[in-house]
């Protein structure tokens, strides 16, 4: 398993590979398999640059937010993750009339930590047929604390 992990870190260093570990990551820990390289890689750390998310802002602070929606719908959820007025994109600040000091702007680097998806987590999903939003526990059979 160690050899496979090393291969994945070297040649499949992408968030798509994280889905391979959703069920078996606790087993790797139990069996004492070294996962440091995996945790340091981009497998569970999805760095993204989406057109729908602002690339610059005047707020230089590091912000940590939860995201429980589908990963592939991330591009639609900037305002779900950052609903506050202070995070309104710079180009929208003029139209909304929100007064923010934008004399200095900074490049934003976004990353999504995918590690919480390997244990039990609360998942929000919108039914495509009924449009009803439901919350359910995912990966209930996987317990990181056991």
């Amino acid at each position, binding site marked *: 398993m160690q050899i*496979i992990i090393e291969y994945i870190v070297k040649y499949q260093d992408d968030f798509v590979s994280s889905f391979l570990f959703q069920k078996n990551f606790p087993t790797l820990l139990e069996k004492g398999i070294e996962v440091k390289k995996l945790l340091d890689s981009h497998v569970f750390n999805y760095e993204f640059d989406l057109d729908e998310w602002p690339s610059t802002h005047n707020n230089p602070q590091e912000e940590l937010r939860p995201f429980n929606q589908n990963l592939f719908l991330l591009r639609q959820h900037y305002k779900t993750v950052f609903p506050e007025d202070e995070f309104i994109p710079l180009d929208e600040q003029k139209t909304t009339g929100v007064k923010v000091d934008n004399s200095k702007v900074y490049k934003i680097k976004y990353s999504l930590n995918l590690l919480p998806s390997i244990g039990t987590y609360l998942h929000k999903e919108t039914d495509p047929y009924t449009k009803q939003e439901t919350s359910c526990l995912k990966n209930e059979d996987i317990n990181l604390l056991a």
Partner: protein
Amino acid sequence: MTAKEVDINDEYQIASIKSVIYDQEEKFYYILSNKFEEKLGFFVIKVSEKDPSDKRFLIKWKNKLDIGDPNMFILRNYESKLKELIVSYKTIYINTYNVICMDVSVEDDQLMIFRHESFQLWESECMGLLLAENKDFIHLSKAGMHVLSLGSQEQRAIKDINGADRMIHSLESCNFLKVDRNNYLVFECSKPDSRAVSVQQEYSKGDGAGEETLFQHLLSVKLCEVTLRELLLFNSLYVCKTLSEIIDIVNDQPDPQVFYKSFLELNGTNMVSILSFDSRSMSYLLSDQFAQHFSKEYPLFYRNKI
């Protein structure tokens, strides 16, 4: 009769309408157009029979390509209440024949389920038809006939005229490759010697008139045709009685490329995944000396049925 007359070209900003199909059940028209706002591409619009202003673009794919010989079909599954729109057409310049399957029973942004791409010369005529019983899609051209299985049955055993056993795999049988149920599959089969299945994510960019459909590539799997020599090698591995015999066979291969190839005969996986229980085989097969066979685009480890 409402006596309301609408010029749909002006109303929807479309031109070069290629095909129209009527859905009797829901009383909607599906229109396939090649131009939207003067831009070439693949555009499908769902329009209400009673009120033409009640419309929705199912896809706005601005791929800058002329399309020809289109066919549209509606495929229903009354048990699962699924309704799929099957659209087929050939494209200029890249000389491909596309069969696109969209789930139109949902009011979602991501409707594409499959896209199958095969070779078709633009200058040569062709047509597609959907069979009722097995849900097979037939592509007829001067080169002959291609069959695509669009039904839910994963595999279907058939016999050819020489009595040889053959297997038809449905497009749905590759669904295991998806990392999320919103993903869609692209079967790139325009070059017979390099067939690949790609997992992509469909998304919309922009609002209103500037909106367009784009695709995010996630991963690809090359599907190879197994040779007799490779089959004999696999058979040798399966008849080995001890682990060391397997390791000997693996280590004896000067070019282990056969272990990295994915085959439909192995349920869409490769021998590296099958042999992953053995660390000594893995250390040989995944060593850096064979790095020329490894790439991020075509991963060796992906979701499989094993």
